[in-house]
């Protein structure tokens, strides 16, 4: 699997390169700046890109902007965004086109190499991988706001949505919650129903469900 890597700190960039190579990825480019990243994404068209939000030259959200710009030209280009902090604002912008293939994780998550690599593979396959921190923030807020759509979900359904938002498959969710896969399927169907998502391609609906989750509120 071909990967483009964008990270401005040398140590982290080399570390990530090693980690990815060790897990059988082919790092086709490891770049430092936003413009370089955009060029690499458009020229090399990798299977997945691993991108730091903050990149030179401006040290603002160059990485995020380059990834979004590349996805405008290559719809659905899988991008996993890494950051020192997670913001619901960014998550919303990343998911806004509704095509999936988006990951948004804290840099801490690379500590657990297996989970991290798993997340990259999910994103490359067109799924989503949201950081548990984003989800936790949302749920904490959700308890304070009474009249939201998500408030109409049962506790179990919320647990399922939470894991779905992290990007897990029904099988993985079942394993985590000690449920059969078909039981998880029933829950997801009920969630889609309550969020008003018409039956369509399941993967797409999963992204839309997460988006609805992130987008609700004001």
């Amino acid at each position: 699997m071909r990967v483009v890597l964008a990270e401005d700190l040398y140590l982290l960039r080399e570390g990530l390169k090693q980690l990815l190579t060790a897990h059988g990825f082919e790092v086709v480019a490891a770049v430092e700046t936003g413009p370089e990243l955009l060029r690499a994404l458009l020229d090399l068209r990798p299977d997945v890109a691993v991108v730091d939000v903050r990149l030179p030259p401006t040290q603002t959200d160059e990485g995020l902007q380059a990834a979004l710009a590349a996805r405008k030209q290559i719809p659905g280009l899988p991008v996993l965004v890494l950051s020192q902090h997670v913001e619901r604002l960014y998550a919303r912008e990343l998911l806004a086109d509704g095509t999936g293939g988006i990951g948004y994780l804290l840099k801490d998550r690379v500590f657990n190499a297996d989970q991290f690599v798993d997340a990259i593979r999910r994103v490359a396959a067109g799924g989503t991988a949201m950081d548990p921190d984003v989800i936790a923030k949302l749920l904490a807020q959700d308890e304070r706001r009474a009249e939201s759509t998500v408030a109409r979900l049962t506790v179990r359904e919320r647990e399922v949505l939470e894991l779905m938002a992290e990007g897990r498959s029904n099988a993985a969710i079942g394993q985590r919650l000690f449920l059969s896969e078909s039981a998880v399927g029933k829950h997801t169907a009920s969630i889609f129903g309550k969020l008003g998502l018409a039956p369509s391609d399941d993967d797409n609906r999963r992204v839309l469900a997460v988006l609805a989750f992130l987008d609700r509120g004001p």
Partner: protein
Amino acid sequence: MTGDWVVRGFVATLHALARGGCAVLSVLLLAAHVALMVPGFGLGLVFLLPWPFVVMRRATNAVRRLSGGVPLPYLPRPPAPAPEPDGRYQYNRRLYRSPFWPRQQRYLEWTLGDQATWRDIGWMVANPVVGGLLGFAPAALVLGGLAAVMTAAVGFLPWWALVPGLAAATAGLATAPALVRAHDAWARRILGPPQTRIGSLKAWLGIRLLALLRMLALAGLAVVSALLAVASLAALTASCLGFVVALPPVVRWTRAVATVRRRLADRWSGVRVDQPYRPEPALPPLRPDGLYEVGGHLYRSRTWTRYHQQLSWLRRDPATWRDMSWTAADPIVGGALVLGSVGALAYGFLGLVIAGLLHIVHAPEPPGLRVFADRPWLAVVTGVALAVAGVLAAPAALRAHGRWTAVLLAPTAEARLNLRVQQLTESRADATQAQAAELRRIERDLHDGAQARLVALGLALGTIEQLVEQDPAGARRMLVEARQTSAKALTELRDLVRGIHPPVLAERGLVDAVRALALDAPLPTTVTADLPGRPPEPVEAAVYFAVNEALANAGKHAGAARVAVTIDYDGSALRVTVGDDGCGGADPTLGSGLRGVRHRLAAFDGTVRVSSPTGGPTLVVLEVPCALSSPRTSIS
């Protein structure tokens, strides 16, 4: 048909009687008010005070219902006092064991701060006459008329009394519905919500009449100035003769009156006049010999030191002397302006028009007409012109009066500079202090948090190095722990960074950072922004934390359902408004958070205004003068 009409008349008469009952009720209310207010205010039995208002609202609500459902004009009732964590109740920075007193105070504040209360009182005073006439007239006419008819029929009155009797009874029955309607219109007018729409002519006249009244009030205050000028002259003469004690009180009175006039200049004439006074000096440091020095003299007691300090403070301040010359000049200049408006109207109307007309009709003793004595018609015409000119000139005269007040009462350029230096010194001290405290907090957090965890991590790694040969399983367990420790260190660092300078702010600027805040806020929050560029970074950070604080406060206030944040720029200052639809009543002086915000913004000459009337909405307005850098080119 006629039967119908009579029945309707009788029903309306009964309705009118019920409204007459309202008049009796207002008499009783008036008596109750006098009975409760006199001891309440006069004897300080404050706990009696809410009762008249409770009774009044009950009574007027009944009248409203009776008068065809007049809508309620009152502000919403304040929430019941909520206990602090320790079970006591706070009101106005004092803690009470029982909620009784805070509740009373809030109730008083609520009722006395409501225009509708004063309209209720107006109703109470006027209704015995108005309501009584309207309510009892039909019944009186009908009963009186019938009585006349009866007595005439029996023969006590001559037969022709039948005619006026019947006429009166008929008139009573016929007018009853109209009088009931008139009563209800009167009740609606005074007990309903005030009508805000005013016709343009009425408004035009109103503005001029108001200006005239204000000029009249200023004339009264000019008399006060004149009295003060005399007092100042006396005090100065006395102090020249060595009797210095007389000066400070006179200066203080002058300052009080001048302060009122500055405020009036702002409120009535729209001319902003700042306070020019130097700040009161602090007690000088104690000398080694235990004495205080003021201007080359040494004093032992604090009281005397303070007294002499104040004396020299008042004497050295040029504003004192400018105030004094103003007290002497105001009766002349201000008086001339009053003559130009109120005087022109009064003389034109009374001295020329009335006197001229009296001359024309050859009244027995016409008042003296000094000018145009032989041509009274001309006097009338001139008088009308003069009166109209006086009315027209009133707003201009009021504005000129404000500008005149500014001439002597506004700070001089030097005083302004002094005040500015003073202000800058204070805000710099605050900023430095805040910065030092912030650094201390960061140091403590790093020391107890990330730094300690990194030490633990190093220790663990050392142990693992030892264990890896002998006990691989144990080493693996320790590795897991070490990883958790490093994750915790990262989380702590992240929180710390958020508190120093939030990353979204660095990456996206103020507007998106506030959007991110709004997304995480406990209440649904909308953000509207119109910012043509980016403010300087320190301003952005200060405003960001201010908005954070305001949003947190809005979340804590009871009753708010949503919050709106607007960010805009008026060409010289960044303005951010945080408004919620809660029940208001927030005390802007309370809350250390907001005080910190105020200090932080003061470093940029920024201001925080909190408006939170009881009943809401609460509005926090932050204003920071700054320049914007050119807009960032955004890809999205």
